């Protein structure tokens, strides 16, 4: 779920852009270091970004209508690591804005923060924790993908709540409103994405 072009007030759009920039810089620098050791990873990163874009634009079969799409952050974070996901996620979100009119340029910073930073790091963290706590692969993957997806949408709701606090209940109530209304689509979607990611990871283990 992306915030559409122009929906955030100027200061918020700017603030989220500033907040995301260092993560992108660090992600690029770490990718650059990896490329010096393995120049062939340049192509790998590029093809991965294309694949992540494809995943992000997928239509899940018969969930809540065809407009809903998974984020793919969970699978991406597990396959390529959360640090690599920042530049990859940036490219994905930029392409979504320019190729599909999902999200936008002024809201790119906010969307990068929720989808390319919070989501992958939560997914990766959850996976690590789940593995440490002795969970087997399938439930760990499910939790990682599902919670990564949920973390993304919680972050987005928070971003909207901060921008548009409720006149009566403030940011907290506004967050409840946004989170509540998006939960209708996002909860089943997160569960479906969790299931799908488990199936994908299990299928990949066969190769």
């Amino acid at each position, binding site marked *: 779920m992306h915030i559409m072009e122009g929906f955030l007030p100027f200061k918020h759009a700017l603030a989220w852009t500033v907040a995301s920039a260092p993560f992108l810089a660090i992600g690029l620098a770490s990718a650059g270091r990896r490329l010096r050791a393995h120049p062939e990873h340049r192509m790998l990163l590029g093809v991965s970004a294309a694949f992540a874009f*494809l995943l992000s634009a997928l239509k899940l079969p018969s969930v809540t209508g065809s407009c809903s799409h998974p984020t793919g952050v969970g699978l991406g974070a597990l396959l390529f690591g959360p640090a690599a996901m920042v*530049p990859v996620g940036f490219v994905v979100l930029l392409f979504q804005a320019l190729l599909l009119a999902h999200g936008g340029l002024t809201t790119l910073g906010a969307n990068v923060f929720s989808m390319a930073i919070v989501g992958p790091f939560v997914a990766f963290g959850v996976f690590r924790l789940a593995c440490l706590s002795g969970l087997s692969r399938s439930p760990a993957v499910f939790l990682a993908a599902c919670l990564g997806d949920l973390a993304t949408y919680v972050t987005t709701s928070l971003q909207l709540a901060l921008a548009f606090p409720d006149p009566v209940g403030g940011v907290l109530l506004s967050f409840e409103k946004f989170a509540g209304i998006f939960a209708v689509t996002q909860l089943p979607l997160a569960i479906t994405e969790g299931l799908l990611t488990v199936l994908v990871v299990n299928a990949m283990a066969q190769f």
Partner: protein
Amino acid sequence: MTLERLAYASPWRHIAPSAKALFCSCAMAAAWIAATPVAAIGLALLLAVITLGGARTPWRAYLRVLTAPVGFLALSCVTMLVTVSPGFSAASAAASTSASASAFPTGSGLAWRIAPELLPQVLMTVSRAAALCTALLLLVLSTPLGDLLGLMRRLRVPPLLLDLMVLAYRMQAVLGEAWSDGLTAQRSRLGYGGRRQALRSMALLISCLAVQVWARASALQAAADARNATDELRFLTPQWAQGSRHVTVALGSGLLMIALVLAARIGGAA
């Protein structure tokens, strides 16, 4: 990939991307400057007319592209317009300020209600979003992403990020084709008969493509090496006929647009 197709078909595709990007930046600046919903909506309408008339986007296609943002706007506006009634009389609604917000947690007679007093703020948000959105659409409906990448190269975007985007742009088309071919093949073998089958088929296809990522990357590397690749991917930046003239025109009309909005703002304040 409707946007791409429309952009390549647009007669404005042959205008220098720098000119179009400049004009759309001006339009975005004007959208931020616009102080009233009327000004912002006026700007949005102007940009839509330019897109339909100048960039020649078919209006049906334009409406179709607009459905997703409009859906988001509708949902968010409803969310913003709904608030709780803290159990007070209608008098508190009139004075719904931050002062009354602090009183909320003590309220016991909690009930949802529509808040008409929020309408001005919601209207401003919606109209500004509409203006910014139409500005972005004008750019992407007249300029394919491939041309924008060329522009980014001239604007000195970090080379690694640029390489990533160039590769992703090309490979999303290749993988997208592989994806739709795979989907067709699965459908022909009854892979999407039910929800359970659909999830399984889709997982198989995703994993199959994920495994291909590595093979495709190494094939591309071999192809690049065969053409003497160095550490960075180098391509020519396309030249655009009459580029500087287009930039001048775009800058002029963009500044005029900003001036108009600015004038409206100052006039409104006075």
